[in-house]
């Protein structure tokens, strides 16, 4: 069976006066129905850009320069704006970081839900309203019959994010792209939203692409995780494997840099330096200037994703290790 979403060698570039900046390079992954894929990385690694490319919301002058995105086997990376209207909202739902800016302050929550439902589903306005109340109840909003006629400013941050989730689910999409859905929320609210997202994905068989920089959220929510660095996927695999036995030196450094509860260390592991800028990408592996195990080969040639047990990682060390085993 083909995966629900397939991203195949995706390239996104931004033409500028000083030449083309390659923001995403050779990004490939898939998500199955009912699966939650986490995408992590530091700011500027290209995780949000990947999400934007999938829902067709790349900011011009950014554009897809190569590769394919397929939803249920159909290409969606070359759709026209008119065609997108039948895909975005209907087959792909989106949840963004800031729940206040993703809702229109001038319409009630009910009006916004009904608009989305009527656009995508063959329902009358009255039926849509019933469905809107139902969605609000499903997302855990108390007294949905009364709340449906309120405006976004009358909701708290956590409740607003629930409304945004209800909007994303309105037309029962097959895929939800959630870009940092809990970053703007307090920890206690964050836990509620994560649990809700996971429960809904499992119940409806919806695939979720969860973009976040929080490894804790990834650990608790996702089935698989992709680690991004400087516009490329450097490691991808089951959550357990990637977080607890990372193969790529960058993932290893990232995991060591996180203060862990209940563990007392004098110093955190430190990856010196910072991620290269798009206009100053080093040759070879983009991580080599910060990698203490980099060899001459790493400085010259760029590694592709290599299978290493259940995960894949883009690192020459892995190939060397495998060559040793074979020899």
């Amino acid at each position, binding site marked *: 069976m083909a995966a629900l979403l397939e991203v195949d060698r995706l390239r996104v570039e931004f033409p500028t006066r000083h030449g083309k900046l390659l923001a995403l390079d050779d990004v490939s992954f898939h998500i199955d129905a009912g699966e939650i894929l986490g995408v992590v990385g530091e700011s500027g690694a290209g995780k949000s850009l990947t999400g934007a490319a999938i829902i067709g919301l790349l900011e011009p002058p950014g554009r897809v320069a190569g590769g394919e995105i397929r939803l249920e086997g159909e290409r969606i990376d070359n759709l026209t704006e008119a065609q997108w209207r039948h895909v975005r909202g209907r087959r792909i739902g989106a949840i963004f970081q800031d729940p206040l800016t993703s809702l229109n302050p001038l319409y009630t929550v009910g009006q916004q839900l009904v608009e989305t439902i009527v656009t995508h589903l063959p329902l009358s306005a009255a039926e849509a309203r019933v469905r809107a109340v139902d969605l609000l109840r499903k997302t855990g909003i108390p007294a949905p019959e009364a709340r449906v006629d309120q405006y976004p400013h009358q909701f708290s941050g956590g*409740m607003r994010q629930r409304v945004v989730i209800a909007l994303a689910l309105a037309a029962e999409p097959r895929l939800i792209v959630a870009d940092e859905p809990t970053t703007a929320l307090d*920890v206690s609210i964050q836990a509620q939203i994560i649990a809700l997202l996971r429960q809904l994905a499992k119940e409806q068989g919806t695939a979720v692409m969860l973009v976040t*920089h929080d*490894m804790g959220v990834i*650990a608790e929510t996702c089935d698989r995780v992709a680690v991004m660095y400087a516009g490329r996927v450097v490691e991808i695999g089951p959550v357990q494997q990637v977080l607890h036995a990372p193969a790529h030196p960058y993932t290893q450094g990232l995991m060591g840099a996180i203060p862990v*509860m209940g563990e007392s260390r004098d110093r955190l*592991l430190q990856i010196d330096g*910072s991620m290269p800028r798009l206009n100053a990408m080093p040759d070879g592996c983009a991580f080599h200037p910060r990698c203490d195990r980099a060899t001459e080969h790493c400085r010259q040639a760029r590694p592709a994703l290599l299978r290493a047990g259940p995960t894949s990682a883009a690192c020459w060390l892995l190939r060397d290790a495998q060559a040793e085993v074979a020899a």
Partner: protein
Amino acid sequence: MSALVEVKGLAKVFDVSAPWLNRVIERQPRQFVHAVDNVSFSIQRGQTFALVGESGCGKSTVARLLVGLHEATRGQVLFDQVELTAALKGPQGTALRQRMQMIFQDPYASLNPRWRVSDIVAEPLREHRILTDDTEVNDLVAQLLQGVGLSASDAARFPHQFSGGQRQRISIARALASQPEFLVCDEPTSALDVSVQAQVLNLMKDLQQARGLTYLFISHNLAVVQHVADDVGVMYLGRLVEVAPKRTVFSAPRHPYTQMLLDAIPDVRMTGRQRSPVIGEVPNPMNPPAGCAFHPRCPHARAVCKAERPELVVDGDSQVACHAVQQGWL
């Protein structure tokens, strides 16, 4: 060991009333927010005291009160046994200000984009007339920049030429310029990526050891607090609900709110963990619940919690404000 900072019954009330005309026409009463209410703690010299809590719990207000950016409504802050509010206004005010500095959350907003790094870092030196000779100032700026892991040549650049982590290093260099003893750090790493956060936290620890600094560290991230703190204070709606040494807070939290917070953090090690998420949200601080402010969300609440506000009571090596703990039904 002596306390460098002692906070006694500190309170700050903000007037958030509607404008006068609205109050008259719409007959609205004046409204007040008790942002900080009866907060007491002390910080030992050379140690780190961390304040944690969710947004709106008053932790940043405490930070601002401690460096004199707000004036307290009630209570007092003793800095090295001197009452702070009066002393800052007195003849010794500038000398006192030199001894405490603040690092802010957002390194993009706390550095003037039109100043060169050399001017930013030298500002406290010139402001307090610590050094007036330009070559001496430049030498010290270069030293400070090297001390936080930047290079001396960075002094000629502007803030926009640096990444977030480097900017936070510039803020730290500026804070250290006047040789302070006490640093108030308001969410110093929450705007940074984890790998950069690790660099900044390590740097702060190194500086503490090298210079014997005392920190008030404010954060909503309990894992970070656990890494840096000696003592921890947990705030909820403007009040301290638990104050204890780090290991007590994290191994045997007493207050139900602390327990809830600890349980809510997503843990990297807990892949696929099932848990019952916490119910409810932080109430509106304009209209806090009667009695214990946490009772609407508390699984152990009884009638007394709705009626009486619990005081912070010493219990073993921690202080807890909870009827359930004090009367022993928890």
